[in-house]
């Protein structure tokens, strides 16, 4: 950033990310780069069985192996509490089962940790794991959420009959029943939202160090929420004062939600470091990440959508079985409830809607938030059904959407499902823009021509709305609904004597570029050079408490906290300037880093001069404290509701079932945009993950509970050549919720994309009579859908 550029506004500019020179030249410091003196290495022995009693564990051979420092089992760590479940939404009652740090007595999924080896290096630790002898008594296994609730199914936990964690509902059942009974048209489907493996480039892990002299721990870990993790580990798992633990998140190679949670490795590295008096490092390998770290989605849903032949949607009834895995992860119950059930009607005014959700235990890895967290499942469901309905009544799917959209003058809009009202929106504008970019009318002609030649083109529309910046604490914090804790964010802004600005935040980046966007905001608002602003984060020592980075909340909540701290700095600066200029504080104007008396911009004090005055402090207004230093705790009055329309165009080869994704158009509205390049980057990555779900990815357990897609040789994360170029555009509908009018963009791409692709595939297959098919649209699944439809007709 040069001095000339300084005078223009930075907000809205595609400034290159200041994080990148470091990260793309290999200068980042990721967890595995950290090496402490005397550090030991941990390896976990995991259960090969998905469900079994542990009859005995013999660690003697492993202990005797040269280079092994210690071997521990669950019995050794009974002084640690099970990991907490922080978001017991959906009236989870007395059937919470969270994992112990190491399993005790029984294992509930393949990958459940059974023993821990600490050794001089990772190779020795791994070798010694093979020397531990465990005797198991295998028990029956269930991996399917719906089957797990049926009579006679294997039971995971005594306190959860029929494996049910919770039965949750939203909306008005009687009204929905009546609407469906009275409707001209009802379309019904079973829709499966398959389990996914989040697959961050960097796997998870932890390094713990213990200082016996002060009884203090330091934990470096791949966490999206270091402050929350510190709280959970100290107050819930260890029962020690919060102040005895410092948590540091180093550079993080992607999280996608998987790195929000409180995992056992944080606890066992700390516990073992204290026990053996040496630092302990644990880093998952990819297979462990797939087996143990949280998965996403995994819903089985029966859905009915009712409407009239004129295209009006009149009712929606949904029953979902949400697979939560073998135990509850940190915020698992909140995902298929608050973040799914409450937005099930999407962008539409549906007068009668009801959703019931069963949360279910199965012998699989835990399921928790994965990019989009509940909203992709909701959005997929409603967008698929709107298309299904349009096809049923023979109406253009764009027209059905227009007819049912919540109109722009209906905001704030209450969808009747227990959310606070949608903040702002103009859904038709985004749809029209996307249709225009794609050339909708021309496409339909081309499609008709192609069909005559035996070529199968399809177009899929997805008009989504989602929930970002989840708040306020008085809503989401309510026990029974939310966290039992707030969801505000904090920021401290200090202007040092030299005029340099230091911002510390509880939000932290793991790919989102907040060091850049926050600095853009501060530089503009304070009127200081961009390079004079540093953003400090990710260390509980030296940053104010924050709930962390997830749910597309860093800008809308954390960024607003920064903005508000800056506003306070400006107020104080005005008072000091008034004192320096012997003027009335109320007459002062703050503009471009200068403060002057209204009408006399020539006699101004710069922020640098004011900061110096505030810092040396020998001449300040009577009673004023020195220094420009302000903190805000920002608790928004509502969530924000980004929206948009994505359109995919595909061609299907009916001989093989191969889907060729030819075009992808994304029109997103995330409110005001701070850095369009960063927003595009977030949208691109998000779309890739949604396309991945539509066409490639699926986590598969066999009936014995073995993860068949246990490596990247079987789990198909798409490479660049498997994705099309994206044509992105925006509409801008500022959010009234926060002063910058921002909404959030981290998850929108994922929330929007899977159904755009699936609607396109199914549109392409319409001539064969295909009305629905499940994801992923692999060649075989498409080929079978064609044949099934043909033999049915």
């Amino acid at each position, binding site marked *: 950033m040069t001095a000339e550029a300084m005078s223009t506004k930075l907000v809205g500019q595609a400034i290159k990310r200041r994080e990148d020179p470091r990260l793309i030249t290999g200068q980042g410091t990721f967890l595995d780069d950290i090496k402490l003196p005397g550090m030991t290495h941990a390896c976990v022995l995991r259960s090969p069985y998905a469900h079994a009693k542990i009859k005995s564990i013999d660690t003697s051979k492993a202990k005797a192996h040269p280079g092994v420092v210690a071997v521990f089992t669950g019995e050794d760590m009974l002084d640690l509490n099970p990991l907490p479940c922080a978001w017991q939404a959906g009236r989870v009652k007395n059937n919470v089962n969270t994992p112990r740090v190491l399993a005790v007595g029984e294992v509930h999924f393949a990958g459940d940790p059974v023993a821990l080896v600490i050794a001089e290096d990772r190779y020795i630790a791994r070798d010694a794991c093979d020397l531990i002898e465990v005797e198991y008594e295998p028990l029956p296994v269930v991996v399917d959420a719906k089957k797990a609730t049926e009579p006679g199914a294997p039971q995971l936990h005594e306190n959860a009959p029929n494996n049910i964690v919770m039965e949750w509902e939203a909306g008005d059942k009687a009204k929905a029943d009546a609407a469906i009974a009275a409707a001209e048209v009802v379309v019904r489907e079973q829709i499966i939202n398959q389990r996914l493996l989040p697959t961050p480039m960097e796997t998870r892990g932890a390094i713990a160090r213990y200082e016996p002299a002060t009884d203090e721990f330091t934990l470096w870990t791949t966490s999206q929420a270091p402050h929350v993790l510190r709280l959970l580990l100290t107050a819930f798992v260890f029962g020690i004062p919060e102040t005895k633990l410092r948590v540091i998140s180093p550079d993080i190679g992607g999280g996608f939600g998987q790195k929000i949670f409180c995992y056992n490795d944080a606890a066992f590295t700390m516990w073992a470091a204290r026990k053996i008096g040496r630092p302990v490092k644990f880093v998952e390998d990819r297979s462990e990440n797939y087996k143990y770290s949280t998965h996403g989605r995994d819903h089985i849903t029966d859905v009915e959508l009712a409407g009239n032949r004129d295209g009006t949607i009149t009712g929606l009834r949904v029953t979902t079985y949400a697979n939560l895995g073998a135990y509850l992860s940190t915020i698992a119950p909140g995902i298929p409830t608050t973040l799914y059930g409450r937005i099930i009607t999407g962008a539409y005014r549906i007068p009668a809607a009801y959703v019931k959700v069963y949360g279910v235990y199965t012998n699989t890895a835990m399921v928790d938030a994965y990019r989009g967290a509940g909203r992709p499942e909701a959005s997929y469901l409603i967008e698929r059904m709107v298309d299904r309905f349009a096809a049923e009544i023979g109406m253009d799917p764009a027209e059905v959407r227009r007819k049912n959209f919540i109109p722009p003058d209906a905001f704030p809009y209450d969808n009747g499902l227990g959310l606070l009202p949608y903040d702002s929106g103009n859904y038709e504008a985004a749809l029209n823009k996307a249709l225009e970019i794609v050339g909708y009318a021309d496409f339909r002609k081309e499609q008709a021509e192609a069909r005559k030649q035996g070529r199968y083109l399809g177009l899929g529309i997805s008009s989504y709305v989602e929930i970002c910046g989840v708040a306020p604490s008085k809503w989401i914090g309510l026990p029974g609904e939310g966290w039992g804790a707030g969801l505000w964010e904090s920021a401290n802004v200090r202007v040092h004597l030299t005029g340099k600005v230091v911002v510390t935040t509880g939000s932290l980046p793991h790919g989102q570029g907040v060091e850049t966007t926050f600095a853009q905001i501060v530089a503009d608002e304070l009127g200081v050079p961009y390079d004079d602003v540093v953003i400090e984060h990710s260390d509980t020592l030296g940053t104010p408490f924050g709930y962390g980075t997830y749910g597309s909340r860093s800008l809308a909540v954390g960024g607003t906290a920064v903005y508000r701290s800056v506003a306070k700095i400006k107020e104080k600066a005005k008072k000091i300037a008034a004192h320096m200029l012997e003027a009335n504080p109320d007459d002062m104007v703050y503009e471009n880093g200068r403060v002057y008396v209204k009408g006399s911009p020539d006699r101004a004090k710069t922020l640098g001069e004011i900061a110096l005055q505030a810092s040396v402090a020998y001449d300040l207004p009577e009673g004023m404290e020195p220094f420009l230093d302000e903190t805000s705790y920002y608790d928004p009055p509502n969530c924000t509701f980004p929206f948009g329309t994505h359109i995919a165009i595909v061609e299907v080869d009916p001989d093989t079932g191969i889907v060729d994704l030819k075009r992808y158009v994304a029109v997103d509205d995330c409110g005001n945009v701070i850095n369009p390049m960063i927003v595009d980057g977030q949208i691109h990555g998000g779309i890739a993950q949604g396309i991945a779900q539509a066409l490639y990815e699926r986590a598969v357990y066999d009936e014995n509970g073995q993860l068949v897609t246990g490596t990247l040789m079987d789990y*198909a994360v798409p490479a660049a050549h498997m994705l099309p170029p994206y044509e992105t555009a925006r509409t801008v509908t500022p959010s009234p919720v926060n002063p910058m009018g921002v909404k959030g963009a981290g998850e929108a791409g994922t929330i929007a994309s899977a159904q755009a692709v699936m609607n396109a595939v199914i549109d392409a297959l319409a001539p064969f009579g295909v009305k629905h098919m499940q994801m992923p649209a692999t060649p075989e699944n498409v080929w079978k859908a064609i044949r099934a439809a043909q033999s049915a007709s």
Partner: protein
Amino acid sequence: MIPAPFQYFAPKTVNEAIGLLQQHGDDAKLLAGGHSLLPALKLRLAQPAVLIDISRVAELKSITSEGDRLVIGAGATYREIATNEAVRSGCLVLAECVGQIGDIQVRNRGTIGGSLAHADPAADLPAVVLALGATINVMGPNGARSIAADDMFVAMMTTAISPGEVMTSVTFPILGKGEGAAYAKLRQPASRYAIVGVAAYVKLDGGTVAACRIGVTGAGAVAVRQPAAEAALVGTSGDDAAVAAAANAAGDGIDYLGDIHASAEYRQAMVKVYTRRALTEALRRARA
């Protein structure tokens, strides 16, 4: 993802490698590009006590043409083969086949010898080796011998190479006028191995198909020829109807695999589709 301990040797000649194999017997494994062996070691599916790394044996790397034959060293990597001018002009289908294996990292390391010796049911090369009637040349304690393509692939991950032998090279024909070959593959999206891969070779005599060989990989436990489909094409003009009839005759006699990527039923259907595609392209080339 950490292999069990092993001893490591890096011989410089084939004879040294054979000597080491003799010395260590069943405990030893040859290591070439490592792209099948190392994943197995890291998952501890294989735990050989001794690795004999033949990637530094210079004599295994050469690619030469000898008359109407191409001799490809067993240690030649996919990338070396795919970019070799003699291969591209004399046996394009081979270059195209190895150019589709895995991703660029795999192609930079993986070798033709490693692939054929490993004989993964989904590997690409066996189909081309069968269709072109290539010869696999090996060297052992008792000297050199050659294995015909049709005798090479015995069962899943089992070949006609004996435990003490090292594959030294593979001999392919240089295709001449009236000959054409093509490879068509349905990729497994994660690994990019073949769900079904079909290689077809045809030779035209005047307007008639004089010879045809078809190799299928991916579909069953072991790569196989398709005699019924071959016979259906030979003697015809190779027009669309003949190709369709031949493709329709393909797919019998395979013990189909079924897994999460493709059921046996789908693989069977795709053998026909890809046989048609490979034959159509091979014929187009033969006529060009």
